[in-house]
């Protein structure tokens, strides 16, 4: 295989990993019925948190933990507003996205332009890495990629094949039915929203620890919004999230590949956003599958009523 192709695939995976993490998280949150529009903010605080902690402690792993914690903390606010206070989930998510972007800009100021010294080790999976071509692409990567893949499969299994999954999905489809059976709707929704924030944070951490190894204000570049579109594209199925995430990873890579062809760089820069629009439009053309797959109670606050 052409080394250029290998390089493209390699970078596609790198670009797609944060999208995959974010999408998996959003799928979990939305499956429980909570619409989390704050992903951009959570990715951002994850990125800055990871960078700061890694820089100051020298440990990329601590940085990763910080990323997860930061994303989860921001999503805790969203869970509180959406599940306990039952406010408008759209506006709450937007507010947290703004807050997250602002806070990360604030905290990250002193770190701008400084190169990240701490690095996550590359893990070569023995045996598998020797497969010709595929070996270097898939099995010679940073640990977050493996975590993302394992999480993706695990989440699919949990949602589709376990009792826990039935409960979560029931909360997202018909919370009243779940509540009557003794399932704690707020509990499930808090858990899933936090998981969503944690994964978004992890995705952000990937950006500042692996993808670009630096911090810039606004480095998430709209990926959080793309994640929300990818969730729809994935039809809320973690396995399909792989498809969308790496497809868009490819688009990000394509941006750089096409540069030498003389296409204006800004048009290339607009590609991911135009692609997102196209993906959403295409999804809208298949009317019934969209209706059947979105969790029926998505975005609607649930109250048990007076006792």
């Amino acid at each position, binding site marked *: 295989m052409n080394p250029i192709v290998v390089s493209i695939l390699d970078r596609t995976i790198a670009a797609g990993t944060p999208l995959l993490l974010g999408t998996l998280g959003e799928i979990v949150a939305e499956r429980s019925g909570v619409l989390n529009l704050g992903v951009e903010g959570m990715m951002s605080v994850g990125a800055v948190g990871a960078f700061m902690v890694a820089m100051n402690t020298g440990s990329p792993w601590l940085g990763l933990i910080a990323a997860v914690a930061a994303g989860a903390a921001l999503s805790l606010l969203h869970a509180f507003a959406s599940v306990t206070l039952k406010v408008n989930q759209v506006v709450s998510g937007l507010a947290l996205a703004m807050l997250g972007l602002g806070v990360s800009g604030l905290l990250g100021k002193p770190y701008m332009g400084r190169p990240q010294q701490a690095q996550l080790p590359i893990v070569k999976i023995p045996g598998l890495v020797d497969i010709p071509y595929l070996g270097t692409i898939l099995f010679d990567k940073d640990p977050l990629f493996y975590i993302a893949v394992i999480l993706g499969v695990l989440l699919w299994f949990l949602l589709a094949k376990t009792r826990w999954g039935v409960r979560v999905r029931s909360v997202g489809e018909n919370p009243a039915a779940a509540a009557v059976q003794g399932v704690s709707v707020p509990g499930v929704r808090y858990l899933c929203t936090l998981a969503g924030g944690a994964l978004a944070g992890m995705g952000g951490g990937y950006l500042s620890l692996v993808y670009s190894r630096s911090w810039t204000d606004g480095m998430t570049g709209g990926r959080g919004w793309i994640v929300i*579109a990818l969730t729809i594209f994935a039809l809320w199925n973690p396995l399909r999230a792989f498809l969308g995430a790496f497809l868009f990873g490819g688009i990000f890579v394509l941006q750089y590949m096409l540069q030498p062809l003389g296409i204006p760089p*800004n*048009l290339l820069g*607009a590609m991911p956003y135009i692609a997102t629009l196209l993906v959403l*439009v295409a999804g809208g053309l298949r009317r019934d599958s969209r209706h059947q797959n979105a969790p029926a109670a998505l975005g609607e606050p649930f109250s048990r009523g007076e006792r």
Partner: protein
Amino acid sequence: MSLRIHVLPRYRAPRGFPLLVLAGSIAAGLIAVGIVFAASGVNPFYALYKIFAGSFGSRYGLGETLTKAIPLILIGSGLALAFRGKFWNIGAEGQLLAGATAATWIGLNVRLPGIFLIALMFVSGFAAGAAWGALLALLKGRFGVNEVISSLMLNYIAYELITLLITGPWKGATQQGFPYTDDFSAAASLWQLPGTRIHVVTLGLALASAGILFLLLRSTRFGYELRVMGENPEAARYAGINFLGVSVLMMAVSGGVAGLAGVGEVAAIHHHLSYPMAISSGYGFTGIIVAWLAKLNPLAAIASGLFYAGILVGGDAIQVSLGLPAATVQVFNGMLLVFLICGDFFLHNRIEVRT
């Protein structure tokens, strides 16, 4: 003896209660910001005093506040309209920029006497913003595309396209290599109140828009249908309301007034088209809070726009004097919005503590 906290729905709010809740939310936001200041080593009371002194306490400050209020009132009232129809238009940045772009082209390429040129610039700016906004309504109506995502995507696309223009075909010959268009001629520039940057024509348009949008919402068939659509879309269907028609018109208006703001910014403040984020200055996002503060009432956007402009101006002032980074404003934006929507919780619920 155990305390149990009951959350019960509130059916009737006493008069003035909504205003009280609003004041409470703002106060909570200011307290939170105060904490941020304190954490940065700044005396919060001093900082807050400086903010309000800076924006309302001097002639210069007042002028700046009014100047910044112009785009905020325009966008705030436009967003109030869209949000009443439950159309989450997050694309005011792009709509503003569309207007700015159209005005730039007209301003630089069309030869007309001053008044007509300005008029044409505003008309084209409105039209461009309207188109950029109506597109979102079409995408949602025809393809079910989530408007939050599409409006944000159009923002990003607008940023890229404009950067493309100013670094390429529209790059000004007179700008010594900077990515700006040529400067506007005097005919294409808006008249400003001497001693200030207040571009009076746009201010008038802003006040008029707030009033017109308010009337639209309250007294016209279109406004009625928009409100029904927002409050209960299924009843709107039953009532034979044309979703696509109403939402396209609504977004055209919402985008159009944002476009007007863009014309004002480019023809009075910057005098040329340059980096999109510098032109829009985040007004498209700040406008969301202005709209929410106004409780989605376009007329009230005048007051909330002025208030928020004061915060921005004051914020600029202390940024310089206290060295706080620009992101502070975004943090405040986010926090205030969070407090505002949490405040809404108290409007619709009441808390009873029973033993």
